[in-house]
């Protein structure tokens, strides 16, 4: 039982990182913009929040938790929105190929984040590890006295507030896309921009805003990664990048439906940590088990394509640039 609880908790922590990434990417992709730069956006979100909080914790004698949280959130959102803005400018205004731009963006953002991450480690001195304990603790503040509720409390109430924010955002985005006029307009831009344009919808504006807001949400995944998953430290082994790619895969797994991404992300988390809880694995066979989330994604890709349900298809104009004078 204890083992199950700890696996469950680990999966939710893992899942929340990619859930943020995927929810943001769903919003972006619904406008027809395929942002493969999610790993890069998450890099930016994580490093920006870390830098902001690092300086605050350094100069404040007693960091106030709520201020820590606000600084981290604001930094992460601004940085990832700027990333989204750069991506939008290049793909929407300059009409670059979205895939190529996404990959170039990852190279840039990965370099940027690890460069500043490394410098911060150096600035922090000592063992060469930066640590923003106060903020990380603030982000990991749990609902008081959750233990008194037994296993239920441990399974569902033992997380920082970002876990619940991610779930809330998933439902909110889903409501926005399916139940509001603006969401309907947004989806029409993703399905057929020329028709949307003819109906008087400002395609450029919709694409810009949804890509930037989507990037901000994805960036929160980076924030959660650094503050909760890594407990306020920086490690340049590129695991944010791997998680970012999983977030992109999760979008497909969830077939562009945010609520489906919730359990999908926790399932990915469970598959990723499964090796840790299966007894009797050698170090080499553990590596084989770590393949599971990727293999499952591949299987889902095949099944979704095989079934060919109209409900599960990507937005029709996904990845295509729109130029009004094109036929």
């Amino acid at each position: 039982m204890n083992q199950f609880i700890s696996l469950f908790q680990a999966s939710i922590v893992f899942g929340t990182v990619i859930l943020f990434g995927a929810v943001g990417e769903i919003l972006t992709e619904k406008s027809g913009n395929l942002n493969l730069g999610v790993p890069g956006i998450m890099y930016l979100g994580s490093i920006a929040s870390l830098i902001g909080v690092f300086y605050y914790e350094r100069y404040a004698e007693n960091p106030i938790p709520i201020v820590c949280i606000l600084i981290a959130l604001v930094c992460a959102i601004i940085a990832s929105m700027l990333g989204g803005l750069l991506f939008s400018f290049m793909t929407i205004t300059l009409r670059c190929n979205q895939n190529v731009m996404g990959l170039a963006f990852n190279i840039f953002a990965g370099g940027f984040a690890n460069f500043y991450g490394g410098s911060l480690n150096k600035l922090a001195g000592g063992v060469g590890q930066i640590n923003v304990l106060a903020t990380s603790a603030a982000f990991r503040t749990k609902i008081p006295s959750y233990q008194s509720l037994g296993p239920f409390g441990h399974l569902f109430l033992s997380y920082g507030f970002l876990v619940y924010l991610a779930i809330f955002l998933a439902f909110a985005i889903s409501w926005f896309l399916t139940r509001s006029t603006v969401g309907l307009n947004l989806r029409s831009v993703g399905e057929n921009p020329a028709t949307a344009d003819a109906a008087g919808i400002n395609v450029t504006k919709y694409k810009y805003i949804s890509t930037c807001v989507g990037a901000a949400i994805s960036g929160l995944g980076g924030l959660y990664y650094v503050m909760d998953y890594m407990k306020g430290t920086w490690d340049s082994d590129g695991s944010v990048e791997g998680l970012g790619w999983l977030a992109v895969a999760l979008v497909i797994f969830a077939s562009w439906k945010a609520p489906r991404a919730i359990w999908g992300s926790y399932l990915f988390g469970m598959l990723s940590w499964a090796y840790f809880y299966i007894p009797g694995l050698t170090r080499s066979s553990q590596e084989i088990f770590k393949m599971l989330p990727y293999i499952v994604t591949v299987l889902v890709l095949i099944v979704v394509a095989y079934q060919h349900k109209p409900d599960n298809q990507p937005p029709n104009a996904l990845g295509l640039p729109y130029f009004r004078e094109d036929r």
Partner: protein
Amino acid sequence: MMKHKKKEPLFRISKSGFVPLHKAWAIRIGALLLALVVCAFIIYSIIKLNPLKVYGTMFQGAFGTNKRMWVTIRDTMMLLCIGLGLAPAFKMRFWNIGAEGQVLVGGIASAACMIYLRGKMSSTAVLPIMFVCSMLAGAIWGFIPGYFKAKYGTNETLFTLMMNYIAIQLTSYFVALWENPYGSNTVGVINSRDKFGWFPPIFGQMYGLNVIIVLVLVVFIYIYLNYTKQGFEISVVGDSENTAKYCGIDVKRVIIRTMIISGAICGIAGFLAVAGAGHTISVSTAGGRGFTTIIVAWMAKFNSFVMVLFSALLVFLEKGAMEIASRYQLSDYVSNMIIGIILFFILGSEFFINFKVRLRQRYAKDKSQ
């Protein structure tokens, strides 16, 4: 009328149609120079040194000594080889972002030959076997997503991406299996004593064979894509699948065949990385090159000779930036940042080749007409 005038946008964008080659290249080179200026500002803001001097350092980093020059050449060849592998797939509009994985499985195959065939044959006899094994491994890794794309229309971008991670885990598995010394979690240099399965020096150069293999591939891919029936089929499928079907081209077959070729060449890149460069295998054997080369292939419009130029440029930038990093005690990652910025400029410059931008004309000018 007045209301109408207000709505006229500041810029008017239109397609530019045919652009002469020299003008297109002038725009690209202009973008590159602009990128270098922007990077100079960034470098200056970080280390407060004369950027021109820093660029001089870059040059030294890439070509400073004979050895450095050969390392630059070796890495260019590696990047080029992957780019050549990607070109057929991308020309077919098949987004193969799985080069990373295809290189890794090729590398695993080579390393396996080096480890298990040692002592059973001579070092020159094993090289062709390694070549074929790596090619096959890469071909299988390319075939799987190609098959499912052709058969069920799966999304190839994500499929190939996932294949990367599966290959990375497979590499970790073999690293744990072959680790040497025990407990180090690295394979170490394979056969360092008798150099079994290493490329022999050619004309006294360690990396001579790398250059020869890749240059042969450059010519092969150029001819294959431009002057053969299969190459023609690839470009028809890439431009319009419906046209291809109408012409009686078996689209599924072309997709699968092209992906096998694409994967096989990336597998060869893995062979070069293991037998001709690192003599070891690790998860960073491909080192993100699978992604970087996509940009190389894309910018070169899949022309293999132009690819030589772009891969040399990228490797030069990488080596140069690494030299800056070590000389001024910065983190290595600064090179990725600089490369990223330069890529943005080069990608952005395509817009000014494909489109014409006109500023809003003055009201008075309108009136007089």
